[in-house]
Structure formats: structure tokens, C-alpha cells
């Protein structure tokens, strides 16, 4: 993507709502995600960054520290660190220390593999560090189905270690799927049990998620179930503002949208730095179409954030096509760009999970072409950690085992 020579000056309304201001972009992101590595011990079926193998061009420790220095200068007060599995980088704890001592608070996402009692005690002794353990099922069956065998036990052990060490308020981060929406109360109970806070986010068809989205994404009636649950329990539950496509439910009920931004923040208030320093508009859009630049090649992160052509496009007034005619447009503002892009829908059309049903119509359209997933870091040869997404079921149309045409037994084919 081109980096503009000069920074375009946008005419801003005086006062105005925060949403109007956010749509025009900020001087630095509010929420920055930084994937430290594409290497991962797990091979989750729905990994949005298609992680597995380390990229040999990964930023070095010194380069990472330079990024942290720049974030401190830009007054980016915290970053969400992820991967891959960030804790398997040998310098992870060093970088964590470095960030915190440079006024850049850290929240990191982990599957828990390295959170032994000793690390848990270290984390409990730090300020400005938040830990988020990924768990996509409240039971091993549901979790391991997508995250791989043993991953439930790893996560629960990590939560127990954190609790025993006196770490306060860890987060349990759940991607909501067709298989786990019925477990929301169980997730909440699990969080309460470990003194943790529940965080629910939306499944995106990004990365390997595109391959399994059809099977995993919540059904329309489950969207309603999720929305109602959030309204009833939402006060103590974090959502990363990721369910704004559900806000039309509230407006239709005569209420208001879900709390939060209710706006696509891509390139406006959020972005992603990947392990090799590529800057993307959003954590769910690791694709050339959303690549703003590289912080090594294009003069640093601030330059990319403030001057990239892509980001300046995203900050200029957008057209939302037919959606603008919808009575609920103000509630969802067209939904999630990444969800549209990776399901092959036009960016100025409805979200694939539009609660008014426009998404289903669009998905059924014949001229839909799925984009190529260019950035695949999946392991070349799957390991024993790979989830096997198969379940044994009976064919409903069969009452008995099939009978061979050569069966000679006079009772063949009889059922009793």
C-alpha cells in the first residue's frame, strides 16, 4: 500500500458525537493488536491468523523494543498481544517487562501452555498486565473439537495457576460458535469459579476460520439467544464491542444498541501489527486488501498509521449501499467489513450475519466469490494437536445395517 507524502487534513465537525469523530480516525489507535509470532503449539480450526509456523522474518527482540518505544512516544497506552502463541517466543517475558516499564500496558492472549505456577506468580507481581485465556467450549468435548485435544485441560490448568498465585481478574476469552452458544451460563460459572471475567467475541470467517465458518457460525436463532443473554448478563461480561451487528435486535425491541462503539473501527481506531511488522486495518483482516504498510519498510508505525493511503481511505466517508435504506442502519452501520470480505460479500452490502436476514439472501447469491486466503502459516504436516472435527452420528434414514445384494440369509433385511 502507498504511504502518502503528506497527511491529508480532514475537516472535522466541532463537538459532534464520538462515533462521528472516530469515523474520521484518531492520531493513534485506541486499541492496537500485535501478533508477536505466527508460531503456535495448537492448530485451532478457526484460527483467524492461520497460525502454526514461525515466520523467519519475525521481528527481532531489538526491533520489538523499537516498536514499544514508538508506541510510548505515540501515547498508545496499551496493546493486545497475541499470535500464534506469544508466550512461546523466548523473549516474550522480556518484551512484556519492557513494554510495561515504558508505559505500554499489556493484555496478552494465550492458550495457557506456558502459564506454570512460577509464571503465574510473576504475572501476579506485575501491574498493567492482563491475561486472556482462550477457551471455546465450557466442556472439553466442545472446546477440543475446534482447539484440539488437551487444549481444554491446558487452559483450565493455567486459570487455576493464576488463581493460586493470586492473579486478579484474568479473562476467559470465548469465540461464540454454534456449538457453544448453549453454554453461556456454564462459561459464566467457570469464570466466577476462577475469579475471572468472561469475554465473548464474534467468530470471524478470517484465516482458517473461512474453512469452518459455515459449520461453526451461530444460527439465526442462536444470534437472538446470544443477544438476549448479553442484555441479561452483559454488565459483567466483556465483548470487545464485537457484536455490534446484533444491535438491530435492541432497536427493533424499542430499546437501544448494545453498549460500546457499535462501529467498524478498522484503520480508524484499531489496527494490527503482525509478526513481521506488516500493519493491517484490523486483527480480523490479515489480507493484502487490508495491508496498510510495513513499519520497517515504511518509516515506522506512526507513519503508517497516519499516512497510509488505505487508512486514509477507511477514514473518509464510506458508502454503505443498500444498507443505508434499512431502518436499523444506525444500529449496526453495515456490520463487520472482515466478515463481509471473507465470505465474498461486497463491502457496501449487508453483514453475512445481518439480523434482518439480508445477509442470508446475499450469501445465497450465485455471483459470490470467496477471496483467496493468501497468508497461511499453518503447519505443513499436522501434529497430534490438530483438532479432528468429526463426530460419530447415525444416518437418520437407516433403521438397520444395510443389506448386501448378495445376502443369502432368508432373514436378511428383516428388522425386529
Amino acid at each position, binding site marked *: 500500500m502507498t504511504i502518502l507524502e503528506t497527511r491529508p487534513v480532514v475537516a472535522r465537525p466541532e463537538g459532534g458525537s464520538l462515533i462521528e*469523530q472516530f469515523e474520521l480516525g484518531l*492520531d493513534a489507535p485506541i486499541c492496537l493488536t500485535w501478533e508477536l509470532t505466527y508460531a503456535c503449539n495448537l492448530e485451532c480450526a478457526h484460527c483467524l491468523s492461520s497460525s502454526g509456523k514461525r515466520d523467519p522474518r519475525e521481528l527481532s527482540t531489538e526491533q520489538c523494543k523499537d516498536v514499544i518505544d514508538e508506541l510510548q512516544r505515540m*501515547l498508545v497506552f496499551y496493546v493486545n498481544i497475541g499470535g500464534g502463541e506469544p508466550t512461546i517466543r523466548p523473549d516474550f517475558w522480556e518484551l512484556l517487562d519492557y513494554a510495561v516499564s515504558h*508505559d505500554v500496558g499489556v493484555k496478552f492472549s494465550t492458550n495457557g501452555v506456558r502459564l506454570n505456577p512460577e509464571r503465574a506468580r510473576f504475572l501476579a507481581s506485575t501491574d498493567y498486565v*492482563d491475561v486472556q485465556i482462550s477457551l471455546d467450549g465450557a466442556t472439553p468435548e466442545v472446546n477440543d473439537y475446534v482447539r484440539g485435544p488437551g487444549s481444554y485441560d491446558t487452559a483450565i490448568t493455567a486459570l487455576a495457576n493464576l488463581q493460586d498465585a493470586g492473579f486478579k481478574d484474568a479473562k476467559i476469552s470465548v469465540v461464540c460458535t454454534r456449538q457453544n452458544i448453549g453454554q453461556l451460563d456454564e462459561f459464566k460459572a467457570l469464570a466466577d469459579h476462577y475469579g475471572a471475567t468472561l469475554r465473548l467475541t464474534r467468530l470471524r470467517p478470517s484465516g482458517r476460520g473461512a474453512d469452518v465458518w459455515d459449520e461453526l457460525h451461530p444460527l439465526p436463532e442462536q444470534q437472538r439467544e446470544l443477544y438476549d443473554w448479553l442484555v441479561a448478563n452483559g454488565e459483567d461480561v466483556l465483548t470487545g464491542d464485537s457484536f455490534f451487528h446484533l444491535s438491530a435486535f435492541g432497536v427493533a425491541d424499542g430499546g437501544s444498541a448494545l453498549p460500546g462503539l457499535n462501529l467498524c473501527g478498522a484503520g480508524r481506531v484499531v489496527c494490527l501489527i503482525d509478526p513481521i511488522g506488516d500493519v493491517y486495518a484490523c486483527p480480523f483482516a490479515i489480507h493484502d486488501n487490508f495491508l496498510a504498510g510495513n513499519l520497517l519498510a515504511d518509516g515506522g508505525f506512526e507513519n503508517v498509521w497516519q499516512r497510509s493511503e488505505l487508512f486514509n481511505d477507511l477514514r473518509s466517508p464510506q458508502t454503505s449501499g443498500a444498507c443505508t435504506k434499512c431502518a436499523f442502519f444506525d444500529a449496526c452501520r453495515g456490520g463487520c467489513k472482515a466478515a463481509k470480505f471473507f465470505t465474498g460479500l461486497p463491502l457496501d452490502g449487508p453483514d453475512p450475519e445481518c439480523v434482518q436476514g439480508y445477509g442470508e439472501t446475499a450469501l445465497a447469491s450465485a455471483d459470490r466469490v470467496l477471496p483467496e486466503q493468501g497468508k497461511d502459516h499453518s503447519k505443513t504436516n499436522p501434529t497430534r494437536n490438530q483438532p479432528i472435527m468429526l463426530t460419530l452420528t447415525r444416518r437418520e434414514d437407516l433403521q438397520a445395517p444395510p443389506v448386501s445384494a448378495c445376502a443369502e440369509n432368508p432373514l436378511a433385511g428383516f428388522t425386529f
Partner: protein
Amino acid sequence: MTTQMLDEAWDLSPAVALRPEPFGAMAYHFGNRKLTFLKRMELVEVVRGLAGCRDVRSTLQTAGVSEAQWPGYVAALQGLAATDMIRPRVTSQEAVA
């Protein structure tokens, strides 16, 4: 309540950093990790000016806020106080007591 705050001395909380933005500022509290936006440049000036003034009234006067707008500004400051973005100044006498 409104008039009471006008006569009190307030400071920006030591755990809070202000980041300038085109429309005002973003305030971040390193302790409770709350994020707040100051949507007007004038409010940013008032918040930054608190520490240098005897009380909120003189801060507003110094920033050139007309008296008719004071209730709005005091309400905004009370909102910031609710999340510990600003806190009442502890004078040395009170600290000793």
C-alpha cells in the same frame, strides 16, 4: 453540588495520561484502565489547567469559559471524577492531619 465543586481544588489524577486528539483528548487511567474522551478542546484546557489554579472556578475563568457554560463543564468534571480521572487536591495541611 455544582456550586460546591466550583470552590474546590482538583487535580488530574497522577495515574492519568492525556493524549491530544484532533477533537480534544483521550484520557487513560493506568490504575483502573478506564478510557475516557474529552470531546472539546476547551474541556482539555480546563482539565490541564486544574492543577495550576486555586479552585475550579478560577480554572474556568482562566480558560475563558463563559459563566453560562459552567454547569455543563462542572457536570463533565464530575463525570471525570467518578472514574478517578481527576481527584480532589490534598493540601499539605490535610495530608498532615
